């Protein structure tokens, strides 16, 4: 069922190509999740620029980068001669956004919280701005199906696993995803329980609190180089090394944008995490 839907999506995108070529708008995207949606709607060819958080699909990396989404340069964005600017609500600073709005290009703010409903809102707003409502409806159906499947799997969980998301281990300090963070959002969607309580956002956690939380699974981002968190680092860490997760070797590494981006792949991310937590059969 899903394959056919995706094929349909692709086909409709291809069919629309020659028609749009003549009047294709020049689109600048400010926000990683929106860029993913634009690409999933088949409008990647219309993109002429992106912010530094728009890194998926990897083909976007070849587009000009206008910098971090909250430290934009008015002239930098205008130099790409956009007809349409799709921005997340955080885009800024405000004076830059004001001038961009006055400069002639259509500036559309795409709403959407980092949760399941937020993803669907983002898809609807992005599709409307691009005039691709039918593709948007197909994508929304597909994402809803993924999310519904993830929810169904999560509902089957009888004994939820305590998961601690570790963002970084700079200088040995555990920076974990607390309450209300996007990490907690995806852990919940996958049928797990956030082991970190008592603080919000991504904050350093004391070693003793890590020991007290005693997570059964450690979730980290799959990164290269100095920022990566390896099994050796976790094993050697005074607190993380003593947790049940480290003793049983249950350390899951997943792509950061897939996991925390709350873009169109959120359902897939939740399913993948669910599978990693509970195995394919319960």
């Amino acid at each position, binding site marked *: 069922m899903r394959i056919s839907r995706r094929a349909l999506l692709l086909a409709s995108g291809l069919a629309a190509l020659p028609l749009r070529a003549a009047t294709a708008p020049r689109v600048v995207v400010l926000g990683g999740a929106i860029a993913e949606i634009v690409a999933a709607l088949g409008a990647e060819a219309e993109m002429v620029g992106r912010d530094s958080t728009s890194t998926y699909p990897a083909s976007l990396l070849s587009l000009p980068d*206008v*910098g*971090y989404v*909250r430290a*934009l340069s*008015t*002239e*930098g964005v205008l*130099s790409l001669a956009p007809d349409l600017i799709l921005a997340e609500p955080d885009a800024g600073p*405000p004076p830059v956004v004001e001038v961009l709005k006055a400069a002639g290009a259509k500036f559309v703010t795409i709403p959407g919280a980092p949760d399941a409903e937020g993803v669907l809102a983002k898809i609807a707003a992005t599709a409307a701005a691009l005039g691709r409502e039918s593709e948007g409806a197909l994508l929304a159906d597909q994402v809803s199906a993924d999310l519904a499947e993830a929810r169904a799997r999560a509902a089957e969980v009888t004994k939820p696993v305590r998961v601690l998301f570790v963002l970084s281990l700079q200088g040995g300090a555990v920076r974990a995803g607390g309450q209300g963070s996007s990490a907690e959002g995806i852990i919940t969607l996958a049928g797990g329980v956030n082991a970190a309580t008592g603080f919000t956002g991504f904050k350093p956690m004391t070693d003793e609190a890590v020991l007290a939380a005693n997570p059964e699974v450690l979730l980290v981002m799959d990164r290269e180089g100095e920022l990566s968190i390896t099994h050796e680092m976790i094993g050697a860490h005074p607190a993380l090394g003593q947790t049940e997760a480290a003793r049983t070797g249950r350390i899951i590494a997943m792509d950061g944008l897939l996991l925390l981006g709350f873009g169109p792949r959120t359902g897939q991310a939740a399913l993948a995490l669910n599978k990693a937590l509970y195995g394919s059969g319960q």
Partner: protein
Amino acid sequence: MTAARCLFLPLLMLTVLVAGLGTGSTGLSPLRLAEAVHGGLTAQERIVLWDIRLPRLFLGLLVGGGLAVSGVLMQALFRNPLADPGVIGVSPGAALGAVIGILLGGAGQWVVMVAAFFGGWGAVALLTRIAQRGGQTDIARLLLAGVALSALVGAITGLLITMANDTQLRDLSYWSMGSLGGATRQKVALAVLTILPVMLLAPRLAAGLNALSLGETAAFHMGHRVERLKQTAILMTALATGSAVALAGGIGFVGVVVPHLVRLALGPDHRVVLPLSAILGGALVVLADVLARTLTAPAELPIGILTALVGTPVFLQILLRRPA
């Protein structure tokens, strides 16, 4: 040599003007500037020139000039070549204000600006009261209290930073490196009201500051009203630096080094050092901003990085060429 000196300032100003208005990530080049006079620009080019580049140019000149003049005043007042507005608490106070503004108001730029400005003023007002002794401002006391207050304000800032979320932390780190990116006509108007008067009036303190370099007692016997001089210098610094930091964030290096550049080239007479520092400080900030917006175009670098990158080699070269 004299001819070169006479030509230096007009040439510098011309460079600053052409670079400030004629460079950026859009195609509006110096050559196209001539078209602006004849009204031959497209609608978008007009926005780029009048709404983006012109406010940036003026804001850069005023912020840089204000910071450099503040540096001269502080170095003269403390008779210490390393003094800067941080010593009387303006910049740490403004940083605390900005952190509070970012935590409270988030995206609201005006909240951050107002909080930074009053943070700077609050710190100065507190310090000058502490330093008052029998109707006199005791400079040694001012310095010591300034060090203590900076540490305290730094600690409170740090405490608040631990409460910030990721977005706020990134806002803070960008703020602390400064930017002219949000320059608008309103900001330029604020700078004209607060910084320009200081740049224009500071040279009137020159004779008093020259006398002060011989010591407070000597200046007093030469007929200068030392207490009034000190208070005016502090007030001017608080106004110019507080406003510069509120409008453009933390731009380092200009306040400490530009006055030295001028002194190394032309000697220590404040009648020369004050106006020239105002001009050179502005020129340095504008040229650094040109690099900030072109090096990584269409993205932008924080300007605080570039003032030091551009200024340090120039400063070291002058220092090395100076006869021992």
